């Protein structure tokens, strides 16, 4: 593939070599220029700038001095109990929501893959939460979990299903707030998982199942021995993407609890955002964002390293 590319561009090169050489060498840069200019100024420069800021006690007011403090902002994080709490919350949120989304998403995908009636309709409904804005669904869940008896969740759990003895004030306590935040995270992600898994399932050759059926394999055996091993690359991909996503949870928490009560539901991004834009401590905020990025890099690489294995069929 690569060698044919070079060969054909080489051929074109010889055709235009005579007299128009300069133009060939300038053209790609002209095509790159506008897009790259934007990319370099709003992505690459901020990336470097964030690191610089993290080394200063940055003063957001232009003209005032910002003393250089070295790695102080980083050591400060390690001695900051709220940072550790936010980290623990982030990990907990990620583990629970990733497991929930993958399990439910895969289950739905397996079912939708088999169903012959209304497949598109089911797929559309399960996917609706994915395309709905985080702002809207966060506010919606806040409303569903509100603590007056008319809150839909309380009503369903207490009056309809009789699963709870009494109404719960979901959002006034950290543990029950997490129930609201995490169920939102899972509910919103099932559809994405379903679509990706469905595509993978449809790529499995049906002959494999036919052969297994002839050999007398049960449904469970087919699932464990054929389906899951064959979609393993997709499972790894989904896992990596969801973990990255879980670490970036922000809007739901910011809008449902704001990190409260008493900063007990703070996650890394909400803590970073509050440091930056509530307390205007840009240096500490930038250090927190670098710690978060390092964490995401580290975890993603570890996952890919340990889980990725080539599959042939």
């Amino acid at each position, binding site marked *: 593939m690569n060698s044919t590319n070079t060969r*054909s*561009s080489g051929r*074109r090169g010889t055709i235009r070599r005579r007299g128009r050489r300069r133009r060939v060498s300038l*053209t*790609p*840069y002209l*095509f*790159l220029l506008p*897009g790259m200019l*934007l*990319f370099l*100024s709003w*992505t690459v*420069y*901020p*990336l470097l700038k*964030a690191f610089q800021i993290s080394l200063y006690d940055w003063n*957001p007011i232009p003209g005032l001095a910002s003393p250089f403090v070295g790695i102080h902002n980083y050591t400060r994080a390690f001695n900051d109990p709220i940072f550790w709490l936010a980290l623990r919350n982030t990990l907990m949120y990620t583990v629970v929501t990733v497991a929930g989304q993958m399990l439910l998403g895969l289950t*739905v995908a397996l079912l939708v893959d088999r169903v012959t*009636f209304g497949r*598109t309709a*089911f797929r559309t*409904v*399960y*996917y*609706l*939460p994915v395309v*709905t*804005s*985080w*702002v*809207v669904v966060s*506010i919606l*869940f806040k*409303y*569903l979990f509100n603590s007056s*008896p*008319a*809150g*839909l969740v309380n*009503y369903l759990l207490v*009056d309809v299903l009789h699963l709870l003895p009494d109404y719960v004030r979901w959002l006034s306590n950290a543990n029950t707030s997490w129930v609201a935040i995490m169920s939102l995270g899972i*509910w919103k992600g099932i*559809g994405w998982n379903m679509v*990706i898994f469905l*595509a*993978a399932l449809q790529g499995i050759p049906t002959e494999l199942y036919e052969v297994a059926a002839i050999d007398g394999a049960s449904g469970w055996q087919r699932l464990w021995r054929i389906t899951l091993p064959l979609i393993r690359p997709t499972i790894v991909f989904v896992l990596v993407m969801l973990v*990255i996503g879980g*670490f*970036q949870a922000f809007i739901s928490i910011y*809008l449902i609890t704001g990190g409260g009560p008493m900063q007990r539901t703070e996650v890394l*991004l909400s803590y970073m*955002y509050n440091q930056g*834009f509530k307390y205007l401590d840009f240096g500490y905020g930038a250090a927190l*964002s670098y710690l*978060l*990025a390092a964490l*995401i*890099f580290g975890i*993603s690489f570890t996952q890919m390293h340990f889980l990725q294995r080539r599959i042939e069929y």
Partner: protein
Amino acid sequence: MSDRIRQRLGQTLLVLVLGMGALAVALPFIYMISTSLKGQVYVFEFPPRFIPSHPTLNNFVSAWQSNNFGRYFLNSLLVALVTTVLELLLSSTVAYAFARFEFPGKSVLYYTLLATLMVPGMMLIIPQFILASRLKLLNSLTGLILVYTAGGTAFNTFLLRGFFEQLPRELEEAALIDGGNYLTVFFRILLPLSTPALATVAIFTFLGAWDEYVWALTTINEPLKRTLPIAIANFHGTHASDWGLVFAGSLIAIVPVLIVFVLLQKYFIKGLTAGAVKG
């Protein structure tokens, strides 16, 4: 015979299970719609009702007329449209350069682009804020557009480069030999052949810009420059108990998205699974 019956039964069971699941997933939406149709008196009635006893469109009228939603809607539409056009243009030109040319610095630039795909967008928000304030781009829709466009460049370039490289080069080469220049080749040959990929980029860019919250929240203060997500979140803050109004506003914001989604599902699925499933 009994096999067919068993299959029928199996399918019925499947439809039942999937139907119940779908109902559970849809329930929050159904309740949102019904709340938006309730007058303030009925929002907290007990037991909660899915079908409003006195349905009214007042919430929609009041969101649109007396709460400036029309303005926010236009702001969002403008930002999302301009971002989409800009993104299509910029990421496809960059992708074209990477797909069809050899030049010094190519791999360094490309790997820089790919590396930033791993960077969580929000980690850049502090330096971006500083940059925007230096460039007088705070409180400005242009500031939103530039940051949204830049934020998508890496992924969309990656996606489009992959697509361009699958297209045969013969047509382009023939056009060049016939005296066409690279610009006409790009616009007249390459882009028309790439409509499916461009559609995917357009849809995701539009929705991303339409729904973006954090950057807008951070940089927009002036009420008249708000976009829909900011307006809805603020609405929820200032009209804390007026849920009917909040959800009427929310529905105004998400209905266009749902329409786009239902009509263009094909491209959605394609874009989603583009990087995910390789044979």
